[in-house]
């Protein structure tokens, strides 16, 4: 048998293999295989390095039960598309060339005694800083810009601190529409001497409470945080609850089809549209409200392990929604009063109406509509429109994410059906006019935020009392800016039987808009300056007399008021191309103000125009000096800090 074993074939095979390997084809083949193996190794190693979480910023780490929006996408592509198009997604983003709205490479800015320079390095942008005017060699260590907040109005940038995942603000924000850089504190309604708006670590300690999904700031020690989020931005699970169980249960197609055919709710996930009004509103209100922690222990719990609220809950979890005047949470109220005596005043008007944006739950729950138990944010807004093509989504997100038809009176008429037949009789304004719009009277622009006036979300009826006693501009005079409060009181008494309050001589004789702008506090001035650029107000009150007031406001001590004065002035004929830098120093602002005034006086003031005395202008259009000076002396110069 052994002898029968052929000895030659293996040798031949070996010779054959050897010959092949010795040939050029074989050598090239070997080289190709070696090259392929080397490249695979490099790919594996670089992928491994890329997958290492960065250590200089908060990172995504799914909390228990969370799965992230990427997982929701495969089964809910339409809902994913509308969320992806929304500003909720872009509330917080990891900084990258794609997410940064501003041209930053080579940017050089100076503010408050320091020069800042931004350079792009690969996919990152880094900031270096030196004392103003020092040589270039004085630039300090580069700090990477790692996260950003916002995408369409303002973009605020966060940079590493060298303290773990603790962040600090880049001192400038980018005004997206205006394509302009401004110091962060000049993008909020703050006293001019307020200083840096966000302290180092404030993003971790406060912002991430609401600007991410299920964030845990995870304080370590000193100023060091090891922050984690389930997802940057506000994603699916913020409003629908954790998705892990939902996904596990719905891997079964029979279950899914039973739900599709039955049309009933899926108990493994929360659909805010199916919740009762209060619970549905709280889903949005978990962030869109003025809230405070129940106590220090709850704050620590939140910061270490994340929020306890889940959509569908009746309470905000570890926190309480602060409404002035309530009797609830007496201990917490007292604590708030002691820790921050201005807490309520910085957020609410004197009559308890919320005055800062982003806190709509406070207004919604104070509305009479809310008492019916069905009213919620989704009565007017929708988060997932049916049409998911690009133009439809773009239109939806820029129209305040309103549901179809809700941008009109239909929003109110869906419940107030009996008014349908006689709207002009109810409003005493022509049908279809701005004065006949439900929104303009019942949700006027008395809330401030994002450098503009925003509609109040407390549905209410206008009164003169709210203006005379609490300083809150009423809906009538936000349009009829030129009329005195007494005029409004007469109308409301005649039309609706409202009892006129006691009014001062000025309130009886002088334009409410002019009074708010000259002697009001910064918050009143902000609202009235914005309203002066609002087309319905210009139509109702006339435009000619607005010029001197808006020019005057170009030099307001509050940057936000100046910004809106410039924007409103641009809406007036002749000033569309006004070049005005609201962040410029005093001298340049005064120069701009003088130039704008001269332009109006010489070029734009209609020849022969006369101005009514109630507007505090003389017939030629100049401020009546004694009255104006007296009112200016009476200006309410309290420090206004609107905590949006």
């Amino acid at each position, binding site marked *: 048998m052994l002898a029968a074993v052929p000895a030659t074939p293996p040798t031949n095979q070996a010779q054959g293999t050897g010959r092949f390997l010795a040939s050029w084809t074989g050598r090239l083949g070997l080289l190709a295989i070696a090259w392929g193996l080397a490249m695979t190794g490099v790919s594996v190693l670089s992928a491994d390095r890329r997958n290492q979480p960065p250590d200089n910023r908060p990172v995504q780490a799914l909390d228990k039960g969370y799965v992230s929006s990427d997982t929701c996408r495969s089964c809910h*592509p339409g809902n994913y*598309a*509308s969320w992806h198009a929304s500003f909720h997604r872009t509330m917080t983003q990891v900084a990258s060339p794609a997410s940064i709205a501003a041209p930053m490479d080579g940017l050089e800015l100076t503010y408050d005694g320091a020069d800042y320079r931004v350079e792009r390095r690969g996919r990152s942008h880094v900031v270096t800083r030196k004392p103003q005017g020092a040589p270039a060699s004085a630039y300090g260590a580069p700090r990477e810009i790692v996260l950003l907040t916002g995408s369409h109005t303002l973009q605020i940038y966060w940079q590493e601190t060298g303290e773990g995942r603790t962040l600090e603000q880049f001192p400038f924000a980018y005004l997206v529409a205006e394509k302009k850089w401004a110091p962060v504190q000049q993008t909020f309604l703050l006293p001019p001497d307020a200083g840096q708006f966000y302290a180092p670590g404030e993003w971790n300690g406060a912002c991430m409470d609401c600007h991410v999904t299920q964030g845990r700031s995870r304080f370590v020690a000193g100023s060091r945080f090891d922050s984690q989020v389930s997802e940057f931005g506000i994603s699916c699970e913020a409003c629908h609850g954790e998705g892990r169980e939902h996904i596990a249960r719905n891997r079964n*197609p029979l279950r899914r089809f039973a739900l*599709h055919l039955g049309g009933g709710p899926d108990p493994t996930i929360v659909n805010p549209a199916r919740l009762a009004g209060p619970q549905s509103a709280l889903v949005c209100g978990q962030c869109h409200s003025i809230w405070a922690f129940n106590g220090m222990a709850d704050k620590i719990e939140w910061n270490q392990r994340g929020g306890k609220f889940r959509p569908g809950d009746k309470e905000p979890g570890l926190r309480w929604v602060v409404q002035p005047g309530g009797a609830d949470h007496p201990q917490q109220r007292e604590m708030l009063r002691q820790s921050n005596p201005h807490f309520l005043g910085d957020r609410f008007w004197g009559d308890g109406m919320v005055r800062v944006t982003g806190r709509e739950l406070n207004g919604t729950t104070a509305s009479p509509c809310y008492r019916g138990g069905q009213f919620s944010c989704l009565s007017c807004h929708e988060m997932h429109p049916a049409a*998911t093509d690009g133009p*439809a989504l773009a239109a939806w997100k820029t129209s305040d994410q309103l549901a179809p038809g809700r941008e009109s009176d239909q929003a109110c008429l869906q419940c107030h059906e009996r008014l349908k037949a006689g709207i002009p009789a109810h409003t005493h304004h022509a049908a279809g006019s701005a004065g006949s719009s439900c929104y303009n009277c019942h949700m006027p622009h008395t809330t401030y935020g994002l450098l503009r006036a925003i509609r109040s979300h407390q549905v209410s009826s206008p009164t003169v009392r709210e203006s005379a006693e609490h300083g809150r501009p009423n809906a009538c005079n936000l349009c009829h800016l030129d009329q005195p409060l007494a005029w409004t009181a007469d109308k409301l008494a005649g039309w609706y039987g409202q009892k006129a309050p006691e009014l001062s001589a000025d309130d009886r004789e002088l334009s409410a808009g002019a009074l708010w702008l000259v002697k009001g506090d910064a918050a009143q001035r902000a609202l009235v300056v914005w309203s002066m650029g609002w087309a319905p107000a210009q139509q109702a009150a006339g435009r000619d007399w607005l010029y001197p007031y808006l020019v005057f406001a170009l030099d307001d001590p509050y940057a936000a008021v100046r910004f809106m004065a410039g924007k409103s002035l641009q809406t007036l004929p002749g000033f569309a191309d006004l070049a005005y830098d609201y962040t410029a120093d005093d001298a340049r602002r005064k120069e701009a103000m003088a130039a704008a005034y001269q332009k109006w006086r010489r070029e734009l003031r209609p020849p022969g125009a006369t101005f009514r005395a109630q507007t505090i202008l003389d017939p030629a259009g100049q401020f009546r000096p004694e009255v104006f000076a007296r009112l200016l002396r009476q200006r309410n110069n309290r420090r206004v800090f609107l905590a949006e």
Partner: protein
Amino acid sequence: MNTADRHLRFGWWALFVSLTLGVVLETLHGFKLGWYLDAGQEMRRLMLTLAHAHGTLLALVNIAAGLTLRAVKGFELTRGASGALLGGAVLLPAGFLLGGLVINGGDPGLGILLAPVGALLLLYGVGRAAWDLAKVK
């Protein structure tokens, strides 16, 4: 009509129908119809694309079966295998088509239930044909 002719005729008509569906889908693309192209219609787009692709491919399979029957002497398809090839070529694309007409978010409509039946028929028909072909001397 013999088996080969049946598969050839079916195959060519099925190819015509499937290519027509392809033209319809191209038209939907051409006019950018949201019903087909919107982000929320991903499942519909997948189902209709699958219906078009499977319909075309299975039409060609039936044409190949008819040509094989003519070309290979001694090769015959059993009635069951022939019926399975024809049935599968109808049910599988029809399942995708009907499943795509009505969708539920990321799930197709109930018409998709035809697809697995068609897939099983095809498996049987192709397997049986391969087996019978292997036995031909």
